[in-house]
């Protein structure tokens, strides 16, 4: 990356690098690989859902017999891939891509820092994340296979099922990695801003990373404690989650009893609801950057958006039990969580409203990153709105744990966060490699993906309404699912189409690193923030001279300035 580091060996420069930019790219590429692996798993599962009991084409015969006897996916294999799909996509895909990848690469240059506050800790964070991911993948090779109790890992099932110990071990690595990362992010934002970069001048992407870091810091330890107790239940035979009188497969349980099953669910969702905002906020910050840049005008309600993000972050700690309305938790408690859930929807609406109003008066450039960013708004809107019937106690009685839930959170995380992250890749690619990605292929990738994604996830609302439960290996085993079976076929075909439309992206990404159109200007998008004020790609230490910041982040089309963007680091507007 950098020509300043010529005294460094290849290993120090590209593998065990302490440079936040190298670490960011390492995170990004690893996370993209994990996203592909997780996507591959769901393709196999989707084949089984659309055409239950048929041989999986192309790869069916290659899968081990424990997984897919005779090329037909078995229920054990289905449950293993189901659990690992969730785990991989969330903990190894989206979060490492948005926080580890973009957070590491973009946040320090956006605040004018030479690197993260603790570069070696940053490197360690990646080198704890990668083994965590590899442990997760390796669990498929263990006797008994990978974890098969869902990514939520509810006991007692997770305590008695094979594969869970390795999953818990992998989670300990991933939790450690994100704790190291979050401490580093917070200290960097607080103590390493360029002169003049007050908190209220920070770009929204940096704000979103800052709020996210607090969520990771405070929400993961409870999951860690929950995982430690589950691990103890499995390894030491403790009884944290094992109640009295269990009879498993006709045999009285050897556990001493006295544990509480619901305890785990409370602890899990105490993490996992803030985790939802970890999945949402950084991509939101990211599209705010793209939209500000491509509307050529200041964002509407910058401060409101920052306050809304902080409010969301704080509130996300008091809504967790809306995942548990029908678990047998005291029904009166549900009413409390119903109200907090309705309250938390308000700042989310405010965030979307601000971005939409930002379009008013704009001169919208429809380039590839902007298309991805704009698609986020209505599709994330669908994801958010379909959260309402799930957050309402009454409708949740019926919709809880149906395909409606799957449709809802995939609209939030895939058509929302993942699309935003794709947009981010197109947007910051010139910064990372000094070359642009191809626009034509980018637009093909966009239109193909956006149509395919809706084709995958919209049918899920319909079969969810019909009452189809999630995580069913074979939906046709139930009478009430038969009518919706064509929807599974549509969904599966759309998933295959989505795979096809990733080919232009992969080609475009790899090809553009070496042969993309060179950017003569380090600021090809004519942007205002500091990340575009340093060379592309930035050298080691980022800025030749520490920049000074004179104004807020989005001074586009300033009336006193000759050009339509007024960079943060420019001392005076020029007429």
């Amino acid at each position, binding site marked *: 990356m950098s020509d300043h580091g010529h005294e460094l060996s290849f290993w120090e420069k590209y593998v065990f690098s302490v440079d936040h930019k190298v670490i960011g790219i390492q995170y990004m590429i690893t996370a993209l690989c994990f996203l592909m692996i997780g996507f591959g798993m769901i393709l196999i599962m989707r084949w089984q859902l659309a055409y239950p009991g048929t041989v999986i084409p192309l790869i069916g015969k290659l899968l081990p017999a424990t997984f897919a006897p005779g090329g037909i996916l078995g229920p054990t294999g289905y449950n293993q891939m189901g659990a690992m799909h969730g785990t991989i996509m969330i903990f190894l895909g989206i979060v490492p891509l948005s926080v580890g990848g973009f957070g590491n690469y973009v946040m320090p240059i956006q605040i004018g820092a030479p690197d993260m506050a603790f570069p070696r800790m940053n490197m360690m964070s990646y080198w704890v994340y990668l083994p965590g991911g590899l442990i997760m993948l390796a669990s498929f090779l263990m006797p008994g296979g990978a974890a098969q109790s869902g990514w939520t890992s509810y006991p007692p099932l997770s305590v008695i099922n094979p594969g869970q110990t390795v999953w818990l071990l992998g989670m300990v690595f991933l939790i450690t990695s994100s704790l190291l990362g979050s401490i580093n992010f917070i200290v960097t934002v607080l103590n390493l801003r360029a002169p003049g970069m007050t908190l209220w001048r920070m770009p929204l992407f940096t704000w979103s990373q800052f709020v996210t870091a607090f969520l990771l810091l405070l929400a993961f330890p409870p999951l860690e404690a929950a995982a430690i107790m589950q691990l103890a239940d499995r390894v030491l035979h403790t009884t944290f989650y094992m109640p009295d009188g269990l009879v498993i497969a006709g045999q009285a349980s050897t556990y*001493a009893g006295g544990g509480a099953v619901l*305890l785990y669910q409370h602890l899990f969702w105490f993490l996992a609801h803030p985790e939802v905002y970890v999945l949402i906020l950084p991509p939101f910050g990211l599209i705010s950057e793209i939209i500000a840049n491509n509307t050529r005008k200041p964002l509407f309600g910058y401060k409101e958006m920052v306050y809304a993000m902080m409010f969301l972050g704080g509130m996300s700690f008091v809504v967790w039990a809306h995942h548990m309305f029908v678990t047998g938790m005291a029904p009166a408690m549900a009413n409390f969580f119903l109200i907090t859930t309705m309250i938390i929807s308000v700042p989310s609406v405010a965030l979307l409203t601000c971005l939409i109003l930002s379009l008013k008066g704009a001169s919208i450039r429809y380039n590839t990153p902007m298309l991805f960013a704009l698609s986020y708004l209505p599709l994330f809107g669908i994801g958010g709105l379909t959260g309402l019937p799930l957050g309402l106690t009454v409708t949740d009685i019926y919709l809880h744990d149906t395909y409606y839930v799957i449709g809802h959170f995939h609209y939030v995380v895939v058509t929302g966060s993942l699309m935003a992250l794709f947009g981010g890749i197109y947007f910051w690619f010139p910064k990372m490699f000094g070359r642009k990605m191809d626009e034509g292929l980018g637009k093909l990738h966009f239109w193909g993906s956006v149509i395919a994604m809706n084709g995958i996830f919209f049918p899920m609302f319909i079969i969810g309404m019909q009452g189809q439960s999630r995580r069913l290996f074979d939906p046709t085993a139930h009478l009430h699912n038969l009518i919706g079976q064509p929807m599974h076929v549509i969904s599966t075909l759309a998933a295959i189409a989505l795979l096809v439309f990733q080919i232009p992206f992969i080609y475009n990404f790899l090809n553009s690193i070496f042969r993309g159109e060179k950017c003569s200007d380090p600021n090809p998008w004519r942007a205002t923030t500091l990340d575009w004020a340093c060379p592309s790609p930035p050298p080691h*230490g980022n800025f030749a001279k520490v920049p000074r910041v004179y104004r807020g982040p989005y001074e586009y089309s300033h009336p006193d300035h000759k050009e339509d963007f007024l960079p943060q680091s420019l001392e005076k507007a020029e007429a």
Partner: protein
Amino acid sequence: MSSTAEAVETVEYENVGIPDGKLAIWLFLASEVMLFGTLFTSYIVLRSAAPAWPVGWDVLNVPLATLNTFLLIGSSVTIVMSHSRVQKRDFAGFNTYMAITVLLSFGFLIVKAIEYAAKFNHGIAPSTNIFYSIYFVTTGLHGLHVIGGIGWNLGLLWWAKNGGWDDKLFEGRVEYAGLYWHFVDLVWIFLFPALYLL
């Protein structure tokens, strides 16, 4: 800005007036509070749901645990002393107090090992019942934190002899070790009554 030496200029970055390391250790401790807080919450939930709960002093060795409490409090005092010796640039004093701290922490672990061994000899294990599940997992996790602290403190002793004493970061690192150690002590101060006395 610990090791970004290349980019260091005579520029004052915007900051909140707390050194990086201190900020980081406080954030780390915040996450630790959440970790042990969760375990305490689980203890309360499980205990309130249980039909019967053993009284700590009937089933656990309270005198040994009391001894352990004094050992840890003592070590918290000596680590403060060792930090003040660093500020007074008293190398021998720092070494003495830090060594006492490490010895007291080893003492804590030895007493803990005696307690554990006595339980195992009576056929009591984490799997015996929910009370012992909590007892072994919380004290075990606390024990791991003690071992971590010993490692850190031994590292400081070694570093002091090998160039660390004159390093400008040295005093800060001793202070952070002290903050961490106080936290480990504090966790015990909560664990002791929760498990042994109540």
